[in-house]
């Protein structure tokens, strides 16, 4: 087990290293970062001075080595815009994103799993049909449109909730619902089909035949076996939540990692972009590792190697 975790952590480090190299390469190939960042009317002398100061005049290999050496220490250089350490900026925004993401994840699971289970257990009932319709619509509705429409309804018309920003609990309501909506739809659909699969198994029939109550049949014998695909998807989706957060945070002016990344990309503030890429890929791979470890706990037949 320990060896497995160690080898997965090495893999994580490799993935993070490769994605940083790819982004570094793309940034350098796309043009001179100084010229892209500087105003149009700047003097050639000033450009050169700026370039010299930031080390952009050195050979590419030297720049790359310096970048990787810095990155290994968590040093991605200074933000070109804010004049402060890029990694510190990114880390400052992380708690807001984690708060939003975990609220959305909890909301997703609390709504989607019971809905999926009920739909499967009461197959072809009114609840099942309404649930299926809701999940199909939920999957088709783009989050940023849902967000705009909710702002119009709840902030502009009803004046119940703030349009954006972070502070009170009221600020968290709309962003977390918008972020959760799409994932809840997917998870509810998957839960329904996973539970339906398991309900057809012989051990469920056996459990019923020996006179177990419906609550135990569903709660213990069905759910635990249906959990593997649900946990897989929830884990993958938890990673995609980071992507969804980019859009949700921008609509609701939520001061998180996603919004910072969008702004850094729009401003061509590449040290911040690279620091954000680093943090996001670390988070994403750690989430996936957690999911894999959960398998062994859920289903002892799964042997990790």
């Amino acid at each position: 087990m320990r060896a497995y975790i160690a080898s997965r952590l090495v893999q994580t480090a490799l993935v993070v290293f490769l994605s940083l190299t790819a982004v570094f390469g793309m940034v350098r190939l796309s043009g001179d970062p100084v010229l892209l960042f500087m105003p149009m009317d700047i003097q050639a002398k000033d450009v050169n001075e700026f370039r010299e100061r930031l080390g952009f005049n050195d050979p590419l290999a030297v720049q790359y080595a310096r970048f990787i050496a810095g990155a290994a220490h968590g040093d991605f250089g200074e933000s070109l815009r804010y004049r402060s350490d890029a990694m510190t900026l990114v880390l400052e925004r992380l708690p807001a994103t984690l708060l939003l993401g975990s609220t959305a994840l909890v909301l997703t699971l609390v709504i989607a799993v019971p809905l999926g289970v009920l739909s499967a257990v009461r197959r072809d009932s009114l609840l099942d049909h309404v649930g299926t319709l809701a999940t199909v619509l939920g999957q088709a509705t783009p989050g940023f449109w849902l967000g705009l429409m909710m702002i119009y309804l709840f902030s502009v018309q009803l004046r119940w909730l703030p349009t954006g920003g972070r502070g009170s609990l009221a600020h968290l309501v709309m962003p977390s619902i918008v972020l959760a909506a799409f994932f809840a739809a997917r998870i509810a659909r998957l839960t329904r089909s996973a539970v339906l699969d398991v309900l057809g198994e012989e051990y469920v029939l056996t459990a019923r035949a020996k006179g177990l109550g419906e609550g135990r049949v569903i709660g213990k014998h069905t759910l635990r076996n249906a959990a593997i695909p649900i946990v897989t998807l929830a884990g993958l989706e938890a990673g995609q939540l980071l992507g969804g957060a980019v859009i949700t945070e921008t609509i609701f002016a939520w001061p998180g990692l996603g919004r910072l990344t969008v702004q850094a990309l729009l401003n061509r503030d590449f040290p911040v972009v690279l620091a954000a890429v680093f943090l996001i890929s670390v988070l994403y791979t750690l989430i996936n590792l957690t999911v894999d470890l959960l398998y062994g706990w859920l289903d002892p037949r799964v042997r990790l190697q």
Partner: protein
Amino acid sequence: MKKYLGGGVTLAVLLVAVLAPWLAPHDPLRADLVQSLRPPGTPGHWLGTDQLGRDVLARVLHGARLALFIGGCTVLLTAVVGGLLGLVAGFVERWPSAALMRIADVQLSFPFILLAMTINAIVGLGLRNIILSLSAAGWVVYARVVRGEVLSVKQREYVHAAAALGVGRVRLLFRHVLPNVAPSIVVVASLQFSQFVVAEAAISFLGFGVQPPTPAWGSMLSESRDFLYVAWWLAAFPGAALALTALGVNLLGDWLRDRLDPKLRV
């Protein structure tokens, strides 16, 4: 149900996209400041006008053209490139295949929308670059799925039989293996299509991708944010068109998967 609703909506959106120049009552780019921000129901402007007095209906109809064009090009590009790479990676089990799959792993360790947006911000904005960015982020799924399928198909008896009869490797791959993995490619393509359309809109919404004044749904939604207090219709209609398109294509994709490849999970 899925078949008729999905097929019907998809066909309708397709027709609108093709016939947009004839269906649209106005030029989607022509501004008329006297007529700005008119609500839906105004004579001559059924869905109202935007801040520059451009007809919202005309812009939404032309938006369909752009959305389907971008979605179509991206799906085609990713299916051909990702499909070919997956085909070869599954067939030739040497180190380049392993390397390719590691690249795929690295890409999959990053949220799709964020990857496409980052690539787009770096390579530059505009129509061609958004297609390239989405493709660069999206080919991985095909490569993965197709490789997995090839690994299983190439062990089948008819492939061994063909090889024993002296069929060359290239012919074996394209005549005997490819037709048997083609259904998976079609299913993945149909499921990816709406993802690409929505991702393009999201990226344009964030200020990358297709730029104003081109009537793309995403950039229309982006512009509408400044007028949400006075003109709800600027946000409502392009978004509804986007959701409807995604709904139709999703249903069609689900139906295709049920028909062609029920086990596939994407």
